[in-house]
């Protein structure tokens, strides 16, 4: 049933050929060697972006909170590797038996990787949404966009208020 997902992954434009779009050394900040902790940022769409400012790559997840609400995830549709995305744009979908929900780009950038493990195990999104059930990696165009997202505290408050 994940054929569309595969299709999406396969149909990635030629951009996939890589090196040109990968972050190059010059993007590394000088202090990168001492920074190993990824920054966790959240969106009101219940997404989590785990951002490594050494590489400018963010890994996108849905939050535990979202996973719990969705129920059993049975299908995920992800963007093609190499696709350039605009903040706020729909880049895929997560489907449970109950319903489908869009995945929105939390920041602008380029998709550099998708989680192939979800091909066979969409359930990872339910069991480990903020871990092995990640969706894709985004090379972030403007790291200041990451800073403007919610931090963990603000997200928690948002969830509580939303209740």
């Amino acid at each position, binding site marked *: 049933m994940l054929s569309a997902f595969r*299709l999406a992954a396969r149909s990635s434009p030629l951009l996939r050929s890589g090196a040109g779009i990968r972050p190059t050394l010059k993007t590394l900040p000088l202090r990168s060697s001492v920074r190993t902790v990824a920054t966790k940022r959240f969106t009101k769409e219940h997404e989590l972006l785990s951002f490594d400012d050494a590489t400018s790559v963010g890994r996108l997840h849905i939050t535990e909170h*979202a996973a719990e609400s969705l129920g*059993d995830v049975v299908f995920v549709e992800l963007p093609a590797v190499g696709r350039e995305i605009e903040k706020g744009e729909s880049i895929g979908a997560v489907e449970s038996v109950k319903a489908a*929900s869009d995945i929105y780009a939390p920041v602008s950038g380029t998709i550099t990787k998708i989680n192939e493990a979800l091909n066979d195990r969409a359930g990872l999104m339910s069991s480990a949404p903020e871990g092995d059930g990640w969706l894709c990696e985004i090379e972030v165009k403007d790291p200041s966009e990451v800073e403007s997202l919610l931090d963990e505290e603000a997200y928690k408050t948002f969830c509580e208020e*939303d209740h």
Partner: protein
Amino acid sequence: MSRSARLSGIIQRHSRQTLTSCSSSRRALGNVRLFANATGDLKKTALYDFHVASKAKMVPFAGYSMPLQYGAVGQVASHQHVRNEVGLFDVGHMVQSIIRGPSATAFLERLTPSSLHALNPFSSTLSVLLNENGGIIDDLMVTKHSDQEFYVVTNAGRRDRDLTWITEQLRIWNEGRDDKVELEILEDWGLVALQGPKAAEYLQKLTDADLKPLTFGRAAHITVGGVKVHVARGGYTGEDGFEISIPPEHTVGLTELLTQPPVQLTGLGARDSLRLEAGLCLYGHDLNEQTSPIEASLNWLVAKNRRESGDFIGAETVLKHLKEGPPRRRVGFTVEGAPAREGAEIISKENEPIGKVTSGIPSPSLQGVNIAMGYVKNGYHKKGTEVQIQVRNKPRKAILTSMPFVPTNYWRG
């Protein structure tokens, strides 16, 4: 543009989408709030406290606060439990009534296209209330007790419309006649559905009545756990099962007795996926007042002799649709690539829009298969026809597939 939804709507919307007023097919994860809190002005069934104590996640449905699922049991597991063992649903939100009087059969044959005079006592049938244009006001279960008494179950979400309609039709019917008909609503009576291949074995242990002769579509007054109840064999899952109507004072006690292992409490989520696999319609989604029973592919509900007599409300349209073919028909699909949800557009191979999906899910029983039902233009309704369904702006290949998607498992003796 409203084709999709953000993660931020999911919690609230999923549940509503599951069974109530789903208008657009996809939603976002966000609006958790409505979901959790909008229970203030909602009605409760007799089992509300029982659900809460059983760790149900309560959601608004048809004006009631109803269980979506229980504890940590996910929708898929809950669904499978009913397919493989036995589950119990609270359907006490539905409207139970008795229609009685010397001319009750003729009255109900005016309101429905069913052949009720020919129905055996203590037998049930699915039927429809039709408006003057032949549109479906509601679908309902009618159980005949005698020529002068019928037990009727209608949808909670159609309560006001149905009762206003029936009351008005009664007024007209009773005008100037002696053999009057009356409507009694069984307010506060409990209604639970025990469903699954192990339902009969479980219920048999609680009653002296022999359940074997009570085949699919039959009903009886029997004593279960010391309580006299009305039992109709059937349900809304495609499995063997019983719909049990319980006097108000016994609803909680008897439900406790009916929910011991292996029976699992089952919520609206699994109810929706079970009924869709069985090819059964959900009013407000797959049926509405603009749809005739022939368009809905419910031709079998219009009895042969009623086609000849044509003396029911809405007959003109129904007979026309039977004779000339309806403009569109309800069909089933299997969809490749992604599940098609309510509202998704159906496109012919020639790229013409030919209809819309009214219900759709990834099937929990047929793993890896996305199933859906919807309406297509007459002519495109043949089994095996290939069409495309738009999901997230991409056409997905879909094949017209006969329903039920999962074979039914009714007890026919």
